[in-house]
């Protein structure tokens, strides 16, 4: 795989309710990414959007975003999955040699749509949707119980993840203010409202408004654009079966295979990873995914020291719990990993990282996963 660089990025501070016009949000995000490396509209050759018709309340949700996203007379397409998948499509376009600068943007504003109902539209409409019992909330409950019962992990162990992420979020200036809490304790997490037993409200990455954009360029162009590109060394994605009853929810096979594909492509193993940015919809998912990636043995992820200054920092930015802007969250994980590699994560910087991973997901219980291996470039 040829080297592709992440040369620029932007995401604005997340908020539970960004009272701001949709096109203005898109414009500011894409313009912000271009401005971060002083590029112009005419430098863009391709634009990939990540939006969802059911999250935007309109058919062809990218149709009106052409101008604000800088796609006018550029090669435009839309990946209707998490932004991290859109980034994969952007990466493919760069790798094909047809394009020199790809803008990948994604995001939505859950303050404007019923997030839970929009998730329900993903269910099997011939059987599960009429009963409306399988949804993002119950799926999380099933997953956590399956994980706890199989490996004997306690709710406290899982609450610790939420505590860590919310404390990290407090240091991340762009995190959702509702998720930032420097003084949170395990008890607070366990005593918060029950969302879907055993998942409590503070273990859940509540949706908030946000958009993100990154710029991708081939090696030669990347080096001209910036002194500190971050290289995409490997990417892998994979999809599990749909029915929750078909899957062993205590593990994540799709992430295992995605990670294998990405690590093989990059020629590294999980041991070479300096830190991870994982898209976790619930606190326990961070553990399940970390195990699937190979950062820990099965059932042992809770024993990792994953603090910012720990052995293997996981989600130093706070992860999706710090702000889950649907369809931008995966891009934000990539951006946060890039920030760390560039040494720009002010206040939550991991010590001198070289190799990072960032993940994205879509579907109930992380049905479809994608994983990036990112490497520090430049000096």
């Amino acid at each position, binding site marked *: *795989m040829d080297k592709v660089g992440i040369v620029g990025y932007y995401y604005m501070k997340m908020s539970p309710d960004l009272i701001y*016009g*949709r*096109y203005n949000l898109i414009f500011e995000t894409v313009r912000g990414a271009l401005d971060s490396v002083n590029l112009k509209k005419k430098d863009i050759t391709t*634009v990939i959007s990540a939006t*969802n*018709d*059911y999250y935007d*309340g*309109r*058919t*062809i949700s*990218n*149709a*009106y975003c*052409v*101008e*604000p996203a800088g796609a*006018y*007379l*550029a*090669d*435009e*397409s*839309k*990946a*209707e*999955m998490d932004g991290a*998948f859109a980034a994969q*499509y952007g*990466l*493919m*376009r760069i*790798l*094909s*040699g*047809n394009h020199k600068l790809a803008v990948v943007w994604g995001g939505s504003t859950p303050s404007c749509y019923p997030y839970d109902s929009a998730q329900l*539209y*993903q269910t099997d*409409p*011939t059987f599960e949707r009429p009963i409306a019992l399988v949804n993002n909330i119950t799926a999380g409950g099933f997953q956590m119980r399956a994980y706890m019962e199989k490996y004997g992990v306690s709710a406290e162990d899982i609450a610790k993840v939420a505590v860590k992420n919310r404390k990290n979020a407090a240091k991340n200036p762009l995190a959702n203010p509702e998720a930032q809490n420097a003084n949170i304790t395990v008890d607070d997490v366990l005593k918060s409202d029950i969302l879907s037993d055993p998942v409590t409200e503070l273990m859940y990455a509540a949706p908030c408004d946000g958009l993100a954009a990154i710029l991708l360029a081939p090696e030669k162009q990347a080096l001209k654009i910036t002194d500190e590109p971050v290289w995409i060394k*490997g*990417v*892998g*994605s*994979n*999809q*599990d*079966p*749909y029915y929750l009853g078909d899957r062993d929810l205590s593990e994540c096979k799709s992430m295992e*295979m*995605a990670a294998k*594909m990405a690590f*093989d*492509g990059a020629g590294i193993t999980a041991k070479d990873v300096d830190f991870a940015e994982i898209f976790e919809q619930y606190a326990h998912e961070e553990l399940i995914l970390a195990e699937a990636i190979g950062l820990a043995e099965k059932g042992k992820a809770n024993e990792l020291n994953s603090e910012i200054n720990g052995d293997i920092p996981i989600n130093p930015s706070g992860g999706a719990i710090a702000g889950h802007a649907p369809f931008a969250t995966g891009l934000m994980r990539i951006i946060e990993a890039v920030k760390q590699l560039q040494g720009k994560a002010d206040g939550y910087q991991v010590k001198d990282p070289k190799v990072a991973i960032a993940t994205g997901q*879509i*579907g*109930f219980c992380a*049905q*479809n996963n994608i994983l990036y291996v990112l490497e520090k470039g430049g000096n």
Partner: protein
Amino acid sequence: MGRQVAIASAGFCEHAVRRSDVSMPEMVKEAIDDCLSKVPSVGIEDIDMFVNGNMPAFEGASIPELWMTDWMGARNKPLMRVTTGGTTGGTVAIAGYYSVAAGLPGVDTVLAVAFEQQSQGDTSVGLSSVALGELTAIQSIGMPLQKMKRLVSAGAAIGIAAYQATNYMRKSKITEEDLARVVVQNRRNAAKNWYTHLKMPNVTIEEVLDTPYISYPLRFGMVCPASDGCCAMLFTTEEKAKDMADIPVYVNGVASVANETGIMGYNAGGGGQLDPSEQLGAQRSAELAFDQAGISFPGKEIDYAEVYAPFPNQELMWVEKLGLFETNTAPEMYANGTTAANGEFPINTSGGVNSTNAIGASAMERPAEAALQIMGKAGNQVPKTVHTSLGHGWGGIINLITMMVMADEPKRKFK
């Protein structure tokens, strides 16, 4: 830098106004089975990655491929969903191309699937929801409701097509009869193709002109149907394609340029394109795709074209804008038989979108048919040998244009 991509196969399911006998995944499986049946050496387990898409708001399911994983055979395989409205099929095909071209480790053979089961949804609400937000915005800046209702009816897909028609008719001085002639050619062609929807073997121009106006100058008989259907295409590398298919089809140029949303958007920007039949996006797409494919004289070098034209005036317009015919000569080409199946430059012998329109799949059926013509396996195969062909699609508010240029010879990159 990039790999040569080839199409090994393409398949369809039967299209009809209501595929009431199958659920969405079952319909998709039908097309995948048809696609793989044409390449006996390939099984579902040989596929490394899946790309698919549909127009979700037309069938009420968000990201339905999560649900249909097993039906597609995508369990524990990479899967990517792309969708861009009417061009979904085209973008899915292009994403299939890029997935192979990128040369990601372990990804050689990619199955691209585009589908639509419109009979389960409410297409009119689906269409109005394209602009629903914009309309509420226009209303809140003082547009009276009565006036807005009219704009809604003028602004739906057919309305925009009517704008194009008025401008195009004015410039090329054609009559409604010319439009009807295109319809007749398409529907008669469709009768010879196994999977199509509106099969009308004996339709005449008079019959078409005998139907009422839907939006001047378009009549009921000229407008595309709403179909249920699915299309699948198999993309792979040059080396593997040679083993899989007798005549692999090489994809030499792709483009999917976005044009402005100007007229309908309340505040979308744009360059202010005044004439909707001008189609800067299409021209730019054609430019890009032909440039990649090394085609300098599309009118001479391309043997067969499938253009996405739900309305007859669009078919005339596109073939000109894509550089296949001189400006304003297209109507004549339809009248003198150049574009017929046995003509010099056959166009849409599959019956086109005008006869079969499963929205999400339509734009993929164009490159699929164009590829099958090169392979010699098309439903309504043209008698002449096709070396180079073209598949085109449009969607959004006629602002997203997809192009795929294919040939029986790989393009050699001299870089």
